[in-house]
């Protein structure tokens, strides 16, 4: 049970506090409600590039990292399709330095041309390292535009095309800041060795004076229902052929989310998952296989992906995956597996909530979803999933015309 308190400053900044005296540290997490879904299709990757720029100095502080390191702090950040999330841990005596640093960069950035030029190179190297210089690394670049035709989830957070990153100018960067970075578009969570009173006082002092801003209204096109099965084939010089299949699902807050998460865990949660036992260990068709949800806020995807053993045809692989899903559909005796994955959710929730950073990130994200209490009652939501709900979800989502497939074919000749 995670105890927390919440307050909202006059400028709209929401703050959640969870005190844990067993640690000498405090975690501070600031979530900005902006991700790659908020980008213009002609300038993708900007939210993520912007995350890099946030470390390049703010109005009154020329360098973010050094003062934080000087008080024993450590920090990082990530950007995904939905949010940009910044977090730090700091010895509790020095928590005010965290407030000073984070409020200053919420107030205004330095917007230096030099920083922009350097960080766009860093981001291009990141793109090369993660997507181009890894076997199978480009599959996500193919998958998103195959599954999404309209919604901005059709590009990955790093961007659709590095030309966008190369061409972005400082005015566009400034405009992005003032349209999305604002106290009324952010959530701060504080966990660890900090009491509510101090958290309140420091939040008022440092964030209170920041004026709220006109945040660009989010008005995203919704993805039309997919009406036909989509299949593409790509050929690459990789050691094994791989199969990727995705199906559209509802939003993160829809009722089906927990049911579908439970289904993917029955399929591939741990070594005892069905895909693992039947297709890797049993029929030996795959060397590895996985299934999971993208967990996006807007309607997301189920992803099943696997690498084929030598000599297995893509058709054989595809049929075997469909059979496993069909079997799940036919059977009525899956009580023990449901209990198993529910136990696993219980266990992983307890473990996730032992880290102050995880607690801070979860509190902020659940607040964004509109219900911070999810940090305590998600386990129950998994617990409530019934066999009927599983069948219904299988019927509703695992159907061919809702599916996109990439056959990622190895062109390598093996002895």
């Amino acid at each position, binding site marked *: 049970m995670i105890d927390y308190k919440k307050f909202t400053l006059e400028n709209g900044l929401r703050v959640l506090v969870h005190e844990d005296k067993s640690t000498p540290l405090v975690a501070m997490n600031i979530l900005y409600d902006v991700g790659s879904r908020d980008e213009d299709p002609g300038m993708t990757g900007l939210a993520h590039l912007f995350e890099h720029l946030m470390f390049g100095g703010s109005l009154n502080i020329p360098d973010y990292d050094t003062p934080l*390191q000087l008080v024993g702090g450590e920090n990082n950040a990530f950007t995904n399709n939905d949010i940009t999330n910044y977090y730090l841990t700091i010895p509790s005596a020095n928590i005010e330095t965290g407030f000073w640093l984070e409020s200053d960069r919420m107030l205004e950035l330095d917007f230096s041309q030099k920083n922009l030029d350097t960080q766009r190179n860093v981001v291009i190297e990141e793109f090369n390292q993660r997507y181009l*210089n890894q076997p199978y690394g480009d599959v996500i670049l193919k998958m998103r535009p195959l599954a999404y035709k309209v919604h901005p989830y059709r590009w990955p957070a790093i961007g659709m095309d590095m030309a966008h990153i190369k061409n972005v100018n400082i005015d566009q960067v400034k405009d992005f800041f003032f349209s999305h970075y604002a106290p009324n578009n952010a959530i701060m969570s504080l966990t660890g060795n900090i009491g509510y009173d101090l958290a309140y006082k420091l939040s008022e002092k440092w964030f209170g004076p920041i004026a709220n801003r006109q945040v660009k209204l989010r008005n995203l096109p919704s993805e039309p229902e997919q009406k036909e099965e989509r299949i593409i084939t790509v050929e690459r010089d990789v050691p094994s052929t791989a199969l990727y299949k995705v199906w559209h699902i509802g939003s993160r807050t829809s009722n089906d989310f927990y049911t579908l998460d439970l289904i993917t865990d029955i399929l591939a949660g741990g070594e005892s998952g069905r895909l693992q036992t039947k297709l890797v260990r049993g029929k030996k068709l795959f060397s590895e296989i996985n299934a999971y949800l993208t967990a996006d806020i807007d309607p997301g995807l189920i992803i099943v992906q696997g690498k084929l053993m030598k000599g297995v045809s893509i058709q054989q692989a595809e049929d075997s995956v469909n059979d496993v899903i069909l079997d799940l559909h036919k059977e009525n005796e899956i009580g023990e597996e449901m209990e198993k994955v529910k136990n696993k959710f219980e266990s992983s929730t307890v473990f996730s909530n032992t880290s102050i950073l995880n607690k801070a990130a979860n509190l902020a994200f659940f607040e964004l979803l509109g219900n911070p209490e999810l940090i305590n009652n998600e386990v129950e939501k998994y617990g409530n999933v019934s066999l009927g709900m599983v069948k219904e979800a299988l019927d509703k989502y695992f159907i061919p015309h809702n599916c996109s497939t990439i056959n990622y074919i190895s062109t390598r000749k093996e002895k």
Partner: protein
Amino acid sequence: MNSLQRMQPPVFPIEKVTIQEAKSFRLNNGIPVYLIEAGTEEIMRLEFVFRAGQVKEHLPLLASTCNLMLSEGSQNYSSEELNRLLDFYGIFFNQSAEKDSAGIVLFFLNKHIEKVLELSREILFRPVFPQPELNSLMKKRLRWYMVNREKVQNLAMDQFFESVFGKSHPYGYQICEQDFENMTSAILSDFHTKYYIPENMTIIISGKLHVKTPELLNSYIGNFGSNKNNTEAPVYPIKGEKSKKIHISKPGAVQNAVRIGSATINKRHSDYPGLKILDSILGGYFGSRLMKNIREEKGFTYGISSTISSLDLSGYKIISTEVGQNNSQRAIDEIYKEINLLQNVRVKNDEMAVVRNYMSGEMLRMFDGPFALAESFKSAWEFGLDNSYYYRLAEKIKTIEPDEIIELARTYYNIEDLYEITVGAE
């Protein structure tokens, strides 16, 4: 409306790390147990460590295969049953075989402690190494290996260890496809009988400990004996390869992987804490010189780091980066330039203050919570050290002088001794 003067708040000294000490006792059969009571949730971390790492193997892949096969079938359970039960009780189960040690770690809710111990006993002491599971594992591992060998960073790392520790030492030799065909059930059983025995193991437990932990451990694990036959592991000489500079061609790669480093002292050496600080200044944190210069100033890379690691028979330091092909040589030149500077120019006080405080904060993080405590305990204990090692490090962080940094850089970063491995397109 903004009347707040946004001045930097005062910097308070970082509290001195206090480390929760482990309690120790022995099981009836002599196995040493370390207990670390910490945390607020009813959960535990249980680790079984064996001196059964690669250094004990006489065939490549033997130590890791034996470790992975522990959960592939036991006297009382098939692999399928073991996996199903581990998942059913919500247990997080990790297997690992490293250069020196091997073992398993289990994370679980306290209420399942008896099940965890029963399964651990099966996995550790009653594995049967079935041949069909072994064949299937080796086929899978070969596929994983082939995918890994597509990545420039893995090619560079494998070559780095070969260059530094030599082609004939288990720390150094590289795996080849042929090695995946050499494992048999009998070889694994033999390795298991020699090294997965009470005389060769230690148990480290942390968390909000279940009250019956000691007696339950004794009843599940405390009765095993062994037929220790005093077989000593084969001893191979550590001898670095002659060639200091190696380039591996990986056609089509869009970035070069760069690894620069050499063998060095380990934690048992009195200079180690100082070297750790020097390593941090060079490339051990976001504000380090390599990060500032090569990423934040020049934008050549997404990341660059320097680390030092301890091994039982040696140690190594390594600088790692992936960098665009056109900038590869310039990045390498800058790395040597930074090492040179550390050997010749005193680190200024403000930089010293940053690294001292950053590392002091890092020490708090290293002992924050039951899992971090257990990992830090293990990494000192493995070298026969106790928490006094960490207190020495903490003291060194506060007191080291710039002249000593120069001295350490000259002693341990002799550029002629460094191996330079690059992997990339041409």
